[in-house]
């Protein structure tokens, strides 16, 4: 049968992929993908622990976390749409008038 550690390893792998995407990708939407991947990794972690600890709190927390992530994405997409209106592109690498 599956062990807790297996799920945790998958979660870490997804987490690392998310970090990679955030650091490397320049497209704002892909960066949001990365953030979603990290959030999913965290939720997987939670639910796995909830199964192990065997109480309901982890699952409830996962529900909260999913809802929150969805809310974040909504605002983020709003910001990206404005960025697109302003710059006609969404390459975050080019958004660097604030620096120094």
């Amino acid at each position: 049968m599956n062990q807790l550690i297996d799920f945790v390893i998958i979660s870490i792998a997804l987490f690392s992929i998310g970090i990679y995407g955030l650091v490397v990708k320049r497209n704002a939407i892909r960066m949001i993908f990365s953030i979603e991947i990290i959030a999913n990794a965290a939720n997987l972690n939670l639910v796995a622990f909830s199964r192990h600890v065997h109480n309901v709190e982890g699952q409830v927390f996962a529900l909260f976390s999913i809802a929150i992530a969805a809310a974040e994405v909504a605002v983020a997409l709003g910001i990206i749409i404005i960025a697109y209106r302003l710059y006609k592109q969404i390459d975050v690498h080019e958004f660097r008038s604030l620096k120094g």
Partner: protein
Amino acid sequence: MVDLQGIIGFEGMGINAWLIWILPFVGAALVPAIAKVGNRARNYAAVGFALASALSAATLLPIALDGGQIHSQINWIPILNIYAGTLADSLSILMTNIAAWISFLIFIYSLGYMHGDKNLTRYWFFMLFFIGSMQLIVLSDNLLMVFFGWEGVGLASFALISFWYHDKKKDFVGTPGHYAGGIQMWASPSHAGLKAFLMTKAGDIMMLSGMFLIFGYAGTFGFTELLQDQSWAAEMARSNLLVPAAVLIFGGAIGKSAQFPLNEWLLEAMTGPTPVSALIHAATMVKAGVFLVARIGPLFFAVSALNSSQFFEVVAWVGAITAFLLATQALVNPEIKKVLAYSTGSQIGLMMMGLGIAGLSSSFVDGYTSGFFHLMSHAMFKASLFMGAGAVLHAVGSRFMTDMGGLRGKMKKTFLFMMMAGLSLAAAPFITSGFWSKDAIFASVLESGYQYSWILFAIAVMVSFMTAFYTFRMLGMTFFGNNSKFIQQNESNQHIHEVSAVMWVPFAILAVASIAVGLIGFAFEHQLHEMFTSYLAGTFGIHTELSAAHEVPAESGSGFLGLGELNPMAVTASIGAFALGALLGGLVYMKRVISPEVVSRSIISRAVWKFFFNRWYLNTALYWGAVIGPLAIYRIIWRYFESTIIDGINPGLQGSMTYFSKVIKAGQTGIAQTYLFVFAAGLMIIIMLLFL
């Protein structure tokens, strides 16, 4: 949370003690806002705040008469265990009332005197700020808050001396073209303000170091705390620091009260508007120094009666020297306000002498009472004289007495009340408050048992004689004789007339009060003496062995005209000095039977006159020693050291900082990916740090 109980204190009266000094500050903060409503509202609001402060001061008077005290504290700087508080005892209640009521009268006077000035908002702001700070000095229960008030009055004084900072010629002080030893002897308002600020600051620094010296040993600034646990004094006395610390604090008083050697600023301070001179430079602020000595004197006397006599010796001699020095200069000066300023410094010297002799005598309370009594009576008549002088200036339009003369016909009320106040200053026997207070100082000096008391006594008598002389000289030159050329020339366009009631009533009240106190002078002094006896005994444990002079009325109870207890020698000397001085002054300047020109006939008297007129060359020495010399030295230092060493090091340090800063700036590339990389890598590093 705030301990309201602690503030309210003694039967709910404690809050009044706070209000006395908080109200003027509130008023100062509000005046600029009220000025938006209208000028009239602003003026009345300012006077209203002064009145409110004075009324709260008056509510405390019964406590002083009962010999009670209110001490309320709040925890102010908990880290250092410093409390803020007010201490309303007999001494501070009397002082706060003097300051509050005289301020109130001067505020009313200002309504007339300053009428139409464009910068009145600034004027009221600083006047209220001044009263608040002054009352803070008086009512504070610890040295630190005293110091804050001390700085506050210094600031207000600076701002008000240079109130007319546009430096118009008519606002100057001193005789134009008068040089002494290469130093210009006349000054503009802004120059005078700066001079006052810097000179009193020298005293403040001494006071600050003295305060912290004591704080270092005692761990507290509070007066009552210092008295309760006296181990600090013993420890300081062991390392020979007690007297130096006390003298350092006295340094602050020297600066603020314009005593020798920091006396020079007070004369230039006369560039301020006359109500300012009356309030700050005659009645209140300069008395702060005397008050401080009265506050800490008993403390030092009580904590180590044997070791602190040197401190009181310093106080007495500084007072004596100042009294003599400034009285001589007052003899020859042609400006009416400056004569009064000299006289103020001189009289404060007498007060200091009284307080100093207190610590040197067996009966502390005699000298103490005499000093404080003189403070009270001087506050009344000097404020009155200044306001009267202001009225004269207002009418004539010149600050020189040589430009006046013969004014008694035209300004009857001013003449009358200035005459009353002037008699008080000159100490006319038996009917003026000045006589009784000066006599008390004479008596306490004579009875002190201090080995050099006869020198002090001699100085005091001489000062007294000179005081009478220059007072009559001033009154004579102003009101007697014929109109000067200046008036005659300007008669057509400047119609000299009596000032309005809003101006003469305030100084009339004070002049009448000083005569009224004089009429019951002895009883008054007796009452004061009783009060301070119980105050000193109750608070400081200084018990007075009743001297022979005071024993009689204390037992017989016939206090009213018990002339029997007066010290006959003191009375004789006092009357004699007055009579001689007044006679001479009257003959020369009122009756004008002797011409003042006699002075210039002999070389010696001319030299003396010039010496006095050039202020003993103290101003010259001050400028050479403290301004021109150091500047020259600084230039040399700057040239050889600062340019090579400091400029050599500083850019290196600055350069390296700028370099690091630029490195960080370069790291902040603006690229979000880089930021996220730093974030993630930093997280990893921190995780690794944890597992180390």
